[in-house]
């Protein structure tokens, strides 16, 4: 049986009524051992902050596992209490989002090789008729990033850097990742 798939529509300007969760930004509870903060702005093509976006993240745990039955290695309960793999942050009036999480481990690839530690990201906003999907990589994983097949598939090497978070020199464990929907520094988005 093949049923027609339900199309996407924009999340619209009023997502704040239904989608934010008080604990949404906390992939892991604040203060959990190894917790890091990833934050940044969502920006439009004019460089203006997007105050009505929703950023969601999904990732493996630090042991490279998912608590999910479709992982052929088996579902694995996270070893850090309260880790759920999923983060959700609505942007504030200044267009900022913030996620508190643990750094994921690298993932084995079909056919060998591995993917560098990463978070999958969905961005929803008024003006986006469908979500846009991107990835966050880490700046201190240069070797793993260089071998990552998803980064390698981006034809223009200069654009790969749009997917690598920037470490905050003043705050250990803090990373900055701006999402440019458009413009000279447009973030790489994926068709998944």
């Amino acid at each position, binding site marked *: *049986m*093949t*049923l*027609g*798939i*339900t*199309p*996407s*529509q*924009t*999340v*619209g300007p*009023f997502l*704040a*009524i*239904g*989608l934010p969760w008080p604990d949404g930004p906390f992939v892991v509870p604040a203060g959990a051992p190894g917790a890091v903060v990833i934050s940044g702005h969502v920006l*439009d*093509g*004019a460089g203006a902050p997007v105050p009505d976006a929703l950023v*969601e993240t*999904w990732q*493996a745990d630090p*042991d*490279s*596992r*998912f608590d*999910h039955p*479709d992982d*052929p290695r088996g579902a694995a309960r996270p070893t850090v209490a309260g880790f*759920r793999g*999923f983060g959700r942050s609505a942007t504030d009036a200044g267009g900022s989002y913030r996620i508190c999480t643990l750094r994921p*481990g*690298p*993932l*084995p*690839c*079909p*056919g*060998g*090789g*591995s*993917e560098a530690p990463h978070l*999958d990201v969905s961005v929803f906003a*008024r*003006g*986006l*008729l469908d*979500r*846009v*999907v991107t990835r966050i990589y880490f700046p201190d994983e240069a070797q793993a990033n260089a071998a990552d*097949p998803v980064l390698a598939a981006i034809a223009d090497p200069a654009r790969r850097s749009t997917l690598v978070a920037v470490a905050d020199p003043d705050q250990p464990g803090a990373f900055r990742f701006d999402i440019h*929907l*458009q413009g000279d520094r*447009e973030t*790489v*988005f*994926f*068709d*998944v």
Partner: protein
Amino acid sequence: MTASNTSAPLGERALPRYHAAPGVNPPLDSAAYKSSAFRAPKHPPVPMPQRLTEITGPLLGAERVAAADADLTAGHAGEPLGERIIVTGRVLDSDGRAVPDTLIEVWQANASGRYAHRVDNHPAPLDPNFDGAGRCMTDSLGRYRFVTIKPGAYPWRNHHNAWRPAHIHFSLFGRAFTQRLITQMYFPADPLFPLDPIFNSIPDEEARDRLIARFDIDQTVPDWALCYSWDIVLRGRSATVFEAGEDQ
């Protein structure tokens, strides 16, 4: 970190692959929808194979949903104004499989077409008995059911005399990152359909029509509420086999 987890090849174990849906979703750059002008990316998206992060996803929600959350007319001092309705259906994948135990979140305008949100300045009354947000989990057969009031149409500033057809926003997770969907449900025979750039951003008429609920007399509750039925279909999947690892 255990090296066995990270470096072990996956071998020839089955990994689901979610079907693409060409022509179903609206293109991001839609000139008729003004808000897309500075927000839709200009570069074409880069194709990404579905690997472990994409074929898994958050299986959560039950812990944050109470039974009362599916009744948007409850929880206040009085009943909201407007036409009480039931909105119900099933969440399926495109292979016809039910999607059980998945979180659905909804939000909507009130009967006057006004959202309980500070940036909505439509000169229509707010309703102290209606927030417009609800959530529920699908049951073991993928079924869901909300009680709410029928939202009103409302004006927006996209173009001269622009009005949105009445709709309810729906957010669904499915079982994988790849299945995540946010969309809108519409009501049958709305005269605003031909005029709405958001509805018409979906190029295929059949796909557009899948966003329109069906009036359902069989599930209408006598002397109480009309029912609209709407099934939601997420991307289906087939099991594929990994290529053998190089180091096997």
